[in-house]
C-alpha cells in the first residue's frame, strides 16, 4: 500500500534528494509531505495522514530527537516508523534515537542503496 511520507529537514536540498532517492528505490509512495523543523512536522501530522517519517536531527525550533519523542508519546502516532537521516554520527545521539524509538538511523552522506536497505524492511518490500 503506498505510503504518505513526511520528510523533515531544514535543508530544502535534502528534502528534494530524499524524494528522488525514494522514487529511484521504488518505495511505494502516495505523497510526500515536507517540513522544515519538528514543530512544522507536528502541525502537518495533526491534519495529514502519515505512514513514514524521515527526519534530520539538527534543526531550528524543534530538533529531530524532540520530534521523535513527541511522536512516540502520542497514542495515535506511536506506531509510525521514524527514521533519522542526519550528519549526527556520534554514538550518544544514535543511542538516544534508538532509546526514543527510532526505527532506523542513516548518516549523511548517504547512498540510495543505504536508504533503500533501511526502508525496505519498514515498508514491506
Amino acid at each position, binding site marked *: 500500500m503506498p505510503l504518505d511520507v513526511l520528510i523533515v529537514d*531544514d*535543508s*530544502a*536540498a*535534502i528534502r*528534494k*534528494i530524499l524524494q*528522488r532517492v525514494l522514487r529511484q528505490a521504488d518505495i511505494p509512495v502516495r505523497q510526500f509531505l515536507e517540513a522544515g523543523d519538528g514543530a512544522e512536522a507536528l502541525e502537518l501530522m495533526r491534519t495529514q495522514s502519515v505512514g513514514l517519517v524521515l527526519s534530520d536531527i*539538527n*534543526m*531550528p525550533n524543534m530538533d529531530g530527537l524532540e520530534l521523535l519523542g513527541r511522536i512516540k508519546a502520542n497514542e495515535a502516532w506511536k506506531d509510525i516508523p521514524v527514521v533519522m537521516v542526519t*550528519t*549526527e*554520527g*556520534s554514538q*550518544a545521539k544514535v543511542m538516544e534515537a534508538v532509546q526514543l524509538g527510532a526505527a532506523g538511523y542513516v548518516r*549523511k*552522506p*548517504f*547512498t540510495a542503496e543505504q536508504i533503500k536497505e533501511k526502508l525496505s524492511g519498514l515498508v514491506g518490500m
Partner: protein
Amino acid sequence: METGVSHEELVQAIHAATAEVFTTMLGLEAAPQPYYVENTAPQPSDGVVSLIGLAGRWVGTGSISCSVAFALKISSHLLMASFEAVNDEVLDAVAEVTNMIIGNVKTALEEKLGPLGLSIPTVIYGRNFTTRTIGNNEWVVAPFHCEGERMDVQVCLAPSRSENPVRPGFPNPHVVGTV
C-alpha cells in the same frame, strides 16, 4: 592548536569527510592539496562562504569557501539540476554540503574533544567582502581541487573558556564586511 587534536588529525578528518561527501552525494572527486595554517580566515574577495559553529568543551567555526562557478557546479551535482546563477537553491545546496562535511569532521573530532554541538549553517554570497573571527585563533585551511576549481575547507577550534560551554547554535562571533 593548543592540545586535543593535532593539525594533521584535523586535516585527516577534513580529507575523509570531504572525500565521502563528494563521492557519495556529488559524484565528484576532490583532490586534497597541502594544508596550511593562518591566523585569520582567508576568504575570496568574490564567491560563496558557508559557516557553521561548533560548540562544546572546544568551540570554533568550520567553513567552506569557493567561487560562484564551483558553488553552481556542486549544486547542480547535488540536486541533479542545472543552475546558471546563484539562487536560494544554490545557497541551500552549499549549506547542506558544508553541513555534511563539517558534521562528519565534528563526529571524528568528538572522540578526542568530547561532545560538540553544531549550529545551523550560514551562507554568504557576494563580491568584495571579507570575513574574520573575533580573537586570534588559528585556522587550519585544507584546499581541494576539483574539475579546475578550488574549494577551501577551514576549521578554527580553541578550548572553551565558558563554565557552561555547550551552546549549540552559538558559534564564535563572526564579522562580515565589504572592502
